[in-house]
């Protein structure tokens, strides 16, 4: 993935699976992964939250950073609740959902700093994995965010959604997509 998609690449994508973003004053269409790489401004999350989410997503589901886990979650949090595609809406958590992510990601960084003096996104493999294990088991001392196993489950699922739940994700698994109605975009922005 190039840091800045070329015009040719954008045209090649043909408007399918693209989100509309304003970059440098002009409106462009990017896939979520391209948007993430191009550093598109975030709509709901802060940069630190986005970096934490990307790092946690990647640790849970390899490939999810490039597949656009941050762009997906950020876009969905900013979308109207009626169009929300986050699995969180099934799990008994009241909207708006941004505080759920904000508090969970902040709590993860608090834990990372307390244990290793670094934010989660900057941890090496071993401490990061140990912290994710503790998150999954709900065994992080002093945790103040949403219930840790629920937070783990939700972010893991978001990361699975972008990695495995798109036409590209099916293709990577070798699973036929066989759409009746082809998704007009990966996760909902009307073209």
């Amino acid at each position, binding site marked *: 993935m190039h840091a800045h998609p070329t015009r040719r690449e954008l045209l090649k994508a043909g408007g399918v699976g693209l989100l509309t973003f304003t970059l440098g004053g002009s409106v462009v269409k990017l896939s979520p992964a391209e948007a993430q790489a191009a550093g598109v401004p975030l709509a709901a999350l802060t940069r630190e939250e986005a970096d934490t989410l990307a790092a946690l997503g990647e*640790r*849970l*589901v*390899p*490939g999810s950073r490039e597949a656009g886990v941050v762009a997906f979650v950020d876009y969905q949090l900013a979308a109207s609740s*009626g*169009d*929300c*595609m*986050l*699995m969180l*809406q*099934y*799990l*008994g958590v*009241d*909207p708006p959902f941004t505080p759920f992510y904000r508090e969970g990601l902040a709590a993860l960084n608090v834990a990372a700093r307390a244990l290793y003096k670094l934010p989660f996104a900057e941890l090496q493999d071993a401490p990061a*994995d140990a912290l*994710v294990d503790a998150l*999954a088991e709900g065994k992080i001392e002093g945790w103040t965010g949403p219930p840790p196993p629920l937070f783990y*489950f939700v972010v*893991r*699922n978001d990361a*699975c*959604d972008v990695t*495995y*739940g*798109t036409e590209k*994700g*099916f293709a990577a*698994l*070798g*699973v*036929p*997509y*066989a*759409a*009746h*109605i*082809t*998704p*007009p975009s*990966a*996760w*909902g922005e009307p073209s």
Partner: protein
Amino acid sequence: MTALPTEKIDAVIVGSGAAGSHFAARLAQAGKRVAILEAGPARENEDLVSSMLWARRLKGSGAPVLETGKDTVGYGFNAGRGVGGSSMHHYAVWPRMHENDFRVKSLYGRSRDWPIGYADLQAYYDRVQDECGIAGEHRMESTRPPGAPYPMPRVPVFEQGRIVGHGFEAMGMKVSPLPLAVTTRAFRGRPQCMWDGWCDAGCPIGALANAQTVHLPQAQAAGATLHPDTEVVRVLTDASGKRATGVEAITKDGQRVKVMADVVVLAAFTIQNPRLLLASATAQHPDGLANASGTLGRFITGHMAVPVFGLHEKETNPGFGASGGQLLNQEHYDDKNAHKAKGAFGSYQWMIAQAMKPNGLLGIASSRPDLRGKALSEFMERASRHMITMTGVVEDEALAENRVTLSARKDAAGVPLASVAHTSSKASNALWDVAAAEGVRVFEAAGAKEAWHANRAPMHIMGGTVMGESAANSVTNSYGQCHDVPNLFIGGAGLFPTSAAVNPTFTLHALSARSVEHLVANWSAAVG
């Protein structure tokens, strides 16, 4: 958008899902002036995007529902949002209830009885099946109660179904084709299903029987008007409190309007019907409309699903087929005390070999939520080709304390939110454990290299506005007609006094067919 009626009409129907659309079609065809008010947005076939992400727009509904108790009923996953309601994402598994399901109290001394028996519903099951279309093979389905043969040939069995079917046979248990309201041939102008497993996202080709495919077109052809984005906030009554006069609703642009009608039909899903009635309290009905008995909101039941998974050495093509499955087993269904020795009570059935997509709450990745990192990547590579699955549907004892109440919190329109408390009985939980252990044994017998079950998952919500013989302990009579307000009818699975252990949609259609026939035949008496 069609304008809301400004003059009094014959019937206003709240909700455009399975029950509401059924009522609307029959009433409009009987010459009644009918308006259907739907809280959610309009839906067209092109909105039914084949994607487990896009599919989430079809679920949940409006204001949050607060859930408490040990075994929450999963409103967000089970409710429907938009025209067609939850019928748009239901999987169309349509078995009939069994004779013992209607007489749980009389036969076993537990739970409740229905005010009708199987014989009262048989003709309506037959009629609905003829109209909506069910694929099945009654001669192979030995546990099926009496009734007309299915109108369409059985659902095909693919590799996943063959493998799991062998597991049942190896344990001396019978499987039969799953009765599915999905087309196995062209049926009443609807094309044949293509079996690519996208039922959860809504079927845009009309192969699956839902409100948009069957009853809404009939209702609209007969003159009923459909009003999306119109959320009913109150049922209105006259000064005596004995007659409903219409409903108050809020339109998309925030206007508060009244739609007046001779008959009000509440078909706004299991949780929202009691919420609306509780929120429509008046001086004559201080504890909520139609709640003289004190049973309004009570006896909420939910099927706790048993998700069973396995990995088989053969390729199983798990994304293929129908979301509901391919085969059925109801081995011990007719004896609710079959597992009494283990402290269990009730019936259960297996829906076998569901089509599974890689992501989503019921997807392949969620079958092993413990896996992450490289282990998850490796699992997904393997499981997306070799997965087998089935789902147990476990009866949930009807308990008065499992109920909908109003929260102190209110929605934007000032209506108190629904709070739903649900904790399954010990005997229901014990039955779940029996089923889960059996499921894993079946998969081992099928030759699975690994077999496991996931945690209980809430599926289908029933009760809360239960029907009964006596006005002293139920909300409606067997026609869904409120004891206290005879021109107020309720449609849907909220009427079920007990949950049984079969999927509810076929039965709620049979009940709707019976109710609306009664209403048309006794219109003057109902209107009063």
